[in-house]
């Protein structure tokens, strides 16, 4: 269906995808579902299959959890709960295999929670710090 508003033309298509109602406007998809009072409520679309690269960018820059890259010991915490941090700021240092490993913040954020203490052992993949 074509819709003309003032001097712009919009190509509109309505479709169903699972329980969601999709509206395609000029190749961009928007999704809705029935809310509690029967009204249509805007929803996130179904997850696309992420390419490896998209997944990497997501884990690198949007991750809320800073995880330990290695099994070792927390040698130093450089930030406190509630602190505003910048991209690239040192958050924590993990001592592992006789190496000091400083972990930097992937983005500007607020430190929501610190899950570890200095001197404590950590496993690879263990959550160290939670960001806003």
């Amino acid at each position, binding site marked *: 269906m074509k819709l003309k508003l003032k001097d712009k033309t919009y190509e509109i298509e309505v479709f169903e995808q699972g329980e969601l109602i999709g509206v395609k406007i000029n190749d961009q998809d928007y999704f809705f579902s029935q809310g509690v009072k029967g009204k249509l409520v805007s929803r996130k679309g179904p997850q696309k299959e992420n390419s490896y690269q998209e997944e*990497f960018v997501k*884990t*690198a*820059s949007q991750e809320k959890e800073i995880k330990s*890259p*290695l099994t070792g010991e927390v040698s130093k915490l450089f930030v406190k709960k509630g602190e505003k941090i910048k991209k*690239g700021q040192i958050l924590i240092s993990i*001592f*592992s*295999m*006789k*190496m*000091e*490993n*400083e*972990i*930097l*913040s*992937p983005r500007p954020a607020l430190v929501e929670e610190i899950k570890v203490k200095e001197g404590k052992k950590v496993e690879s993949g263990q959550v160290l710090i939670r960001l806003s």
Partner: protein
Amino acid sequence: MKIHHFKELDSTNILAKSLIEKGEKPPFVVVAEKQTNGYGRNENVWFSPQGGLYFSLVLPEIKIFHLENLVLALGWSVAKTIKEAFGVEPFLKLPNDVYLRNKKIAGILVENVIAENKVKSSLAGIGLNTNTKEFPSNLKNKATSLKIELDKEVDNDKILKAILKNFKDSFLFGL
């Protein structure tokens, strides 16, 4: 590989870090004839008088799972160089401390910066007691040098180049 040579530094690791911040492209090496503030882990002092070999090797970006190989390759390269050059049998205390005749002869401090799932920079500070004539009383029973053990002066430049070559051969992920 570019080698920055200095007569004296507080610490080769500190100078190497400042070069990274100024945008110097790795790999490169910083070497000093003596250090006034050579350090190991937990701010332990590394005794660094004139005569020893003190250098920092800065590596380009590597993957996190290459770090295990890195730390082993460093200690291995130092021990192998001592064995090949002087025919003595060093002991590599894993992962990276090198002993000769039950006394420590080399120490390695690796400092990595990790961001966005990658090792952005990797800095290995290596202290090898080559021509150190004597040690203070608190180290005498724990530390030794090639000069003390072999009773001869050794060539620090040749040893540095041999360590770098052995490292290149044993670190499998590019240099």
